[in-house]
């Protein structure tokens, strides 16, 4: 119980610290305090990493219950060294390009249009990348499950469907893609196929019942359900309807990945995520396990829709049993699962795997590597290669003394 109490304390402490950051205290002087801190190499909190052109927050997946990530704990990959200061009354969303009626909306007008509130996960395309396994190079970035898998979070997003806005603008026959631009210093831009834009994309102004946090794109952002998060442009200000993919810098350069099975060519436009899950507790570094009853808990999700099944193995993959999925089980949202287990004190490996609505099953590292035409040795370079859309099953090894390790590449 001691370990449980201490993780609760840690959670409260982190939440309090983060609330301060998110309400502006930490960024009160135009982000200069954050900049000063990262230039001196110190992060203002655990689970954060700042560099000269990048700010990252990792979600402490090990520290919260249910499926909603508390907003201040939502992960962030910001391609600038400070947040934009946007005056909401001055902010406009413009829609132009191949439309009959180019339009400009104030944020207040967006709030007056028919609204939706939907629970969806977002995930960085590089979440769980092999490059983040092994000892984190910065002790401040968090526990292993946070650092390795914490670039996914799940929120209730409130906003207006993008299809409503595009209908107001009136799409012309040439329209087939759109390109969105954010109001941050890097003018983060991304192309989106019109088919998806008309399906379920939200122009969100609310997150978990409150306005978007500054680090989540205040005052408005796109939420593109089930797809890699770079599509979900923050600080959204311009949407240009176009007749071909525009291949902005981020998507061409940062969000494509070179793979050996493609003979050194790079795969781009992955769109939707495959089935994925991870045991968040017990997991490496979170606690030291004691013999007896253990509630295994974790999160599962898929870009294809709902999570149809989660299985857990507590015997190094020899057998798998179905875990309990806790309602609500929603499409393109995190699903909480638990599994009752009694640990006998012997060394073992625990892991989870997800089957999604499309019937796809989360692969083991061996299966994923085979799919990509790599042998396992490919991952054991130093540093480990980057990969995107990496959804290999995460095994946690439990030693006889109750300590827990990441053994994905062991």
């Amino acid at each position, binding site marked *: 119980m001691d370990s449980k109490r201490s993780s609760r304390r840690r959670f409260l402490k982190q939440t309090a610290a983060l609330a301060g950051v998110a309400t502006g205290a930490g960024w009160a002087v135009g982000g200069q305090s954050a900049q000063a801190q990262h230039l001196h190499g110190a992060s203002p909190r655990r689970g954060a990493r700042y560099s000269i052109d990048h700010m990252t927050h990792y979600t402490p997946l090990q520290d919260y219950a249910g499926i909603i990530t508390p907003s201040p704990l939502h992960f962030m990959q910001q391609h600038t060294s400070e947040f934009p200061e946007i005056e909401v009354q001055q902010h406009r969303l413009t829609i132009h390009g191949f439309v009959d009626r180019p339009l400009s909306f104030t944020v207040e*007008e967006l709030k007056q249009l028919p609204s939706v509130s939907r629970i969806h996960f977002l995930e960085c395309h590089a979440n769980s990348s092999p490059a983040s396994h092994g000892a984190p190079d910065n002790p401040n970035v968090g526990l292993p499950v946070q650092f390795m898998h914490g670039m996914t979070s799940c929120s209730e997003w409130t906003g207006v469907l993008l299809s409503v806005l595009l209908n107001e603008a009136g799409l012309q026959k040439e329209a*087939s*893609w759109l390109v969105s631009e954010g109001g941050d*210093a890097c003018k983060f831009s991304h192309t989106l196929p019109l088919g998806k834009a008309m399906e379920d994309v939200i122009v969100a102004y609310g997150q978990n019942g409150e306005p978007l946090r500054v680090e989540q794109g205040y005052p408005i952002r796109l939420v593109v359900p089930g797809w890699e998060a770079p599509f979900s442009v923050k600080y959204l200000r311009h949407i240009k309807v176009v007749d071909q*993919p*525009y291949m902005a810098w981020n998507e061409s*350069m940062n969000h494509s990945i070179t793979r050996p099975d493609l003979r050194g*060519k790079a795969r781009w436009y992955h769109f939707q995520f495959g089935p994925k899950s991870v045991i968040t507790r017990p997991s490496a570094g979170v606690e030291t396990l004691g013999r007896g009853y253990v509630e295994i808990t974790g999160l599962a999700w898929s870009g294809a829709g709902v999570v149809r099944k989660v299985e857990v193995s507590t015997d190094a993959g020899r057998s798998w049993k179905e875990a309990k999925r806790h309602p609500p089980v929603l499409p393109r949202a995190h699903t909480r699962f638990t599994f009752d287990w009694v640990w006998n004190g012997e060394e073992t490996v625990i892991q989870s795997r997800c089957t999604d609505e499309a019937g796809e099953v989360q692969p083991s590292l061996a299966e994923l590597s085979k799919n990509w035409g790599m042998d396992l040795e490919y991952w054991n370079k130093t540093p480990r290669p980057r990969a995107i859309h990496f959804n290999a099953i995460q095994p946690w090894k439990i030693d006889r003394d109750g300590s827990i390790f990441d053994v994905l590449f062991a």
Partner: protein
Amino acid sequence: MSCSLRFLLPMMILAVRVAALTQSQPRLYPNLGTPLSQAEIQSFDRMIGPEGKELPAGRGTAKEGAETYAKRCEICHGKNGENGLLRSLVIGRPGQPYRGTFYGEEKNSPSYYPYATIAWDYINRAMPPSNPGSLTASEVYALVAFLYYRNGIIKENEVMDEKTLPKVEMPNRNGFVPAVPVYPPEKKPSWY
């Protein structure tokens, strides 16, 4: 530009398909939103597509770009685009474009980009981070000329302007799968 038909045809087919799904309809909420004039659109429409149709007038050469680079870019990206604080922008040498694979840091060079317009668009809108949008169109053409020259993509005396830039042949143009993004994608497992 020999691939332009191959490039455009699937896009045209797709456009027709999507258009069928999304016929322009009358406005449902005409009291919300303000019409934009062409002048207003021109004031913010800076996103440049692969064909460079939106590129503004201007011109620059690698020599001119070297001066601007030293003043505005070198502090972060290093002398001649190498050994800077971040993102080494050069791989390959003048006259010798890089022909290898792009597994790691090589991707930081514009040699990786599929279209010549990408560097122009990004520099124009996002660089330098301390004052993005402050470079003139000709300064951006010159910077791109300088970077492409250092990467061996163009010759030192080649002029970059709204007509020549989109025609620059990028050495890694065939380095992407699929060659042109398509939607909906081919039916394949999610890991593909």
